[in-house]
């Protein structure tokens, strides 16, 4: 009973949050919430690869891009195609999954630093392709990108429809997807597949010797993670109505990875927390400019440079003070406490410890 009350309270909070935010802080902040939910999905997707299977991926945004461009090309005047979103989202997720396997296949023998370098290169390759595929045939629109993308439509109802209130309808759509993503992550983690991923993260040779086909299971991790990215890419394209290669830079990949690491690799709640924190907190800096203006009469420190400074500082502090992330999984915490004999025995289903 208490559990249901708690659940109801959470549900009420999530349902009322955008309206409260809209009233108190304005629609810009609801939009920030929308983006935060997209980042939650991306971070959860990357968490499958990095947190569960222990494969460092620095080019994750490429899958976001694949999903976004899939949506953009199949629902805009660019090719004159206007497929409904419930068709395009799976296509985008599937395409991203294929790209995930394309990245996974040649990197199966790589680990750690070497894997990071190849994935970083892969991310850049995708972005550069998007940038240059406007000649000889205009496929991606080049640096100009694709615009006039159809908004997401549920039957006759366009999510852009209540004019000026799109941010609210998208909030609920994204919330639904983010919750579904979290649910799928959780189910996967505590399954036969999730255990195989954890085993590979812990010791690949032993995992293979215990009968896990590491090639297939690693490719599956890449594909699953990538399809989450592709899904959120599609939502992003429908929401923004415009995509261009600029949105898919290395910085973005690093940002998503930071969310995973900062929150607590492999711990779903931690990763969600990390994604919300890193997508919402920096926006508070938009008040710093006016504040400086009113205090000193001029801009002393440029808020945008302050943003990177604080971001770097917070990462360093977290690595020094909470190396397992801000909200690590119980197992990871136990491990860092080192006194194994006092381990709490009630945590039976926890195998999400990082390295």
């Amino acid at each position, binding site marked *: 009973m208490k559990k249901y009350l708690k659940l109801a309270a959470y549900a009420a909070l999530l349902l009322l949050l955008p309206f409260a935010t809209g009233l108190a802080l304005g629609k810009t902040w609801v939009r920030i919430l929308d983006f935060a939910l997209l980042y939650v999905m991306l971070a959860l997707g990357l968490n499958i690869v990095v947190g569960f299977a222990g494969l460092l991926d620095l080019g994750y945004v490429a899958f976001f891009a694949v999903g976004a461009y899939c949506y953009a090309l199949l629902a805009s005047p660019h090719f004159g195609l206007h497929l409904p979103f419930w068709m395009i989202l799976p296509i985008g997720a599937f395409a991203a999954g294929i790209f995930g396997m394309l990245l996974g296949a040649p990197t199966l023998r790589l680990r750690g630093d070497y894997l990071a370098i190849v994935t970083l290169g892969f991310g850049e390759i995708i972005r550069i392709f998007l940038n240059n595929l406007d000649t000889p045939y205009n496929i991606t629109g080049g640096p100009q990108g694709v615009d006039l993308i159809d908004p997401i439509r549920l039957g006759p109802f366009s999510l852009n429809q209540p004019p000026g209130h799109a941010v609210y309808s998208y909030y609920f759509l994204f919330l639904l997807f983010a919750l579904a993503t979290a649910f*799928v992550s959780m*189910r*996967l983690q505590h*399954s*036969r*597949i*999730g*255990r*195989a991923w*954890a*085993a590979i993260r*812990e*010791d690949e*040779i*032993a*995992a*293979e*010797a*215990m*009968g*896990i*086909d*590491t090639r297939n299971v690693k490719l*599956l991790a890449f594909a*699953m993670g990538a399809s989450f990215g592709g899904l959120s890419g599609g939502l992003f394209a429908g929401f923004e109505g415009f995509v261009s290669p600029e949105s898919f830079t290395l910085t973005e990949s690093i940002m998503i990875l930071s969310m995973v690491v900062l929150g607590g690799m492999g711990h779903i709640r931690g990763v969600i927390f990390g994604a919300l924190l890193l997508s919402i907190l920096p926006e508070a800096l938009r008040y710093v400019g006016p504040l400086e203006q009113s205090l000193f009469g001029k801009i002393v420190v440029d808020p945008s440079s302050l943003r990177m400074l604080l971001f770097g500082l917070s990462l360093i502090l977290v690595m020094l003070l909470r190396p397992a992330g801000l909200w690590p999984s119980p*197992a*990871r915490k*136990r*491990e860092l406490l080192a006194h*194994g*004999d006092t*381990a709490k*025995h009630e*945590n*039976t289903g*926890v*195998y999400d*410890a*990082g*390295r």
Partner: protein
Amino acid sequence: MAIPQNTRTPASMMQDAKLLEAHDIGRTFGGLAALSGVSLTINRGEIYALIGPNGAGKTTLFNILTGIYKPDSGNFRLEGVEMAGKKPSEMAKSGISRTFQNIRLFANMSAIENVMVGRHCRTSGSVLGAILGNSRTRAEEKAIAENAKHLLDYVGLSKHAHMLARNLSYGDQRRLEIARALATEPKLLALDEPAAGMNPLETDSLKILLETIRRDGVTLLLIEHDVKLVMGICDRLAVLNFGKKIAEGVPSQVCSNPLVIEAYLGVS
């Protein structure tokens, strides 16, 4: 107590006593012939040991039989099925499971989770099943956990089921590795120096465990330096030196073989 998941036919019903037959196995590293022309036969239900001085090729042979290396020449069959060149995961699926000389547990997973991983190749839960959480998947998960619990009990680790593998004592880690390997339902359990670093007390209880496993129908292959343990437990053994088999037979025979004495003690 029998190993829980065993459904194999009793040895008496088997037509063929030979479980594994290796023929003329050779392997070179660079110019060095680590193994050449090694043939051996392991019978069902026996404890077969592989001994030899350092660098004799024991571990190389072991790694070939478990799929880590591919042999350059020769072949080997498990129950008549050609195995040479298969991947380690396929070896495990076919029924050859192993432990490692320097323990390779999944250190940050609990003991029971380590054993549950061993069930991977005997189960089939898919991504879709995991997401939907249908009754078949749930039943399978439950069976996996039950089985792992039984195996922990079998090796005497049930009270440490939820401890992280890294926090177990050395002897317990060795036992956990054996439980994890048993979870794959091996026909042949290959142990790479299971008694390394153990004190006499731990070695004694390991001996009892190995005999129990054999009694329950699993054939054992073991590499061991502890000659006392080997001679006391194995039915037959082979001695390797410089990549060649120099002797094979029951312990008393092998002990008195002049070639073996020479390999171990040198010529006078």
